[in-house]
């Protein structure tokens, strides 16, 4: 028997750090309810079972819904390849890290390292995200190499750092070092962008709808109305419900090329209304 959806409900609040790597819809699609309940969970170095923390309802489905405050749970949806993971609540670190496909939706906040090094799929966070959103795992040369990350709220530092491909959209503000050493891909920020955006970038785009301090190593090209930005913002609105001010669709946008010497094929497109 297979269920339409597998539902996990928290038995009681989790007040210590818990690692749940490997809890992905592609995996639960092949497991019975009993097998799902025995999936390993780590509290520090101590091993426990998923069923110790959650009531499991359903089996053999690639749609996995989890209810509860999971701020202390890290690794949810890590390395996911397909299916649907929906969390009604906030989650801890590394949600969707290394995912290659499928969709994750967090109806709450996410911790640090969300979408770290993803190569495909869609990660939707309706609240805020922590540091290193879509960035590179420790020691890795590349950050995300594909897929899409959409955050309704704000995000921390080093968003999309070393990204090689893919799309990151943040509805609020982002911290310092956004798109640091980005190799390619696009970061769209509706709010304010912190210091040193795009530092050391090779290619890639930063689309800034809010305040941004253009680094001195970026060179002004022109002020124009890029159809690409209009299409991108239209896509974000239709696909993720992230709707920017209507005026930002047409711009104008100031285009800056940089980062000087790295070899300057990157760009910052800064929304430049007449009254700013």
């Amino acid at each position: 028997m297979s269920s339409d959806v597998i539902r996990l409900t928290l038995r009681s609040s989790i007040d210590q750090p818990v690692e749940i790597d490997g809890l992905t819809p592609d995996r639960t699609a092949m497991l019975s309810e009993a097998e799902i309940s025995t999936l390993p969970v780590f509290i520090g170095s101590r091993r426990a079972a998923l069923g110790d923390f959650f009531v499991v309802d359903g089996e053999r489905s690639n749609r996995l819904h989890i209810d509860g405050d999971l701020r202390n749970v890290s690794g949810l949806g890590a390395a996911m390849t397909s299916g649907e993971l929906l969390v009604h609540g906030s989650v801890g670190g590394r949600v969707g890290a290394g995912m290659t496909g499928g969709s994750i939706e967090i109806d709450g906040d996410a911790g640090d390292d969300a979408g770290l090094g993803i190569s495909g799929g869609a990660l939707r966070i309706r609240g805020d995200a922590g540091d290193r959103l879509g960035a590179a795992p420790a020691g890795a040369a590349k950050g995300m190499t594909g897929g899409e990350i959409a955050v309704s709220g704000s995000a921390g530092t080093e968003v999309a750092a070393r990204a090689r491909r893919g799309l990151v959209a943040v509805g609020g503000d982002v911290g310092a070092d956004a798109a640091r050493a980005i190799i390619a891909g696009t970061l769209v920020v509706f709010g304010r962008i912190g210091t040193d955006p795009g530092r050391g970038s090779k290619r890639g785009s930063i689309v800034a709808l809010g305040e941004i301090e253009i680094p001195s190593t970026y060179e002004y090209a022109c002020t124009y109305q890029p159809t690409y930005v209009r299409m991108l913002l239209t896509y974000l609105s239709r696909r993720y419900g992230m709707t920017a001010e209507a005026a930002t669709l047409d711009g104008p946008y100031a285009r800056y090329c940089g980062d000087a010497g790295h070899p300057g094929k990157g760009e910052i497109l800064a929304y430049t209304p007449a009254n700013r």
Partner: protein
Amino acid sequence: MEIRGVFIQDTFAEAFGMRAARLIITARTLKWAREAALKLTGFATSVIACKCEAGIERELAPAETPDARPGVSVLFFTMDMDSLGKRLTERIGQTVLTCPTASCFDGLPAAVDRLPAGRALRVFGDKLQISKIVGGQRYWRIPVMEGECLVQESFGVQKKGVGGGNFLVLAASADAGLAAAEAAVDAIEGMPGVILPFPGGVVRSGSKVGARNYKGMIASTNDAYCPTVRPRTKTELPDGVNAVLEVVLDGLDAPTINRAMRAGIEAACRPGVRAIGAGNYGGKLGPYHFHLRQVMADGDV
């Protein structure tokens, strides 16, 4: 069979399989989207001499286009995949790339077979072009003097396209025939998945395969339906017919052609029209046969 006194001949339209693409052309205003679309679909009436057939399918509201700008949907037909790719690259390059504010997107996103027409155009950017992936689709931003031209990399291909659907309006006078043909075109235009590639949707110079008196001709006048030479040829014209016009249809599939023919013929049955006929080659050349009486009886092909 008669419709409002117009005789529906017991014959069929013979049509051919074609490869089809749908382009979504957008621009800052509908005027500029139409300018690009009109140029792109210009001189594209028949593969016989134009190498492709194309026409405007309909206008699109901003809510229907990828960049939320006004747009025009264009259908594009050729006989094979190779020529479809070449013609798309040529025509998008010369008409959309050149047109102020215009962009070009794929209108068949679910199609498995794809042609990289946009990828071929990217080299116009002389390595200053930028590639972007949004929603799993790659787009090219090509720098131009105005700013940038945005073109989708690949375009879906409908392998079950049908070209050469047709019906003949046999009228007592040229005026009556033209009025009936115009009514048919009005009824068909805007239907999804179909275009009428000829001027105003109407053809006055229907053709037969080859020629009796000139070697090497691919096609020559369909003299059996030419009223001025009625005594000199093996005519197919009923008594009282003094003008014939043909409505030619290309569609994304056979059922679409069927529906459009039905709507067009229904509208064309008006005063001054003696009969509705169809062009065919005896059923030996084209795999799609649209029998008029079956079409009008609401039947499938």
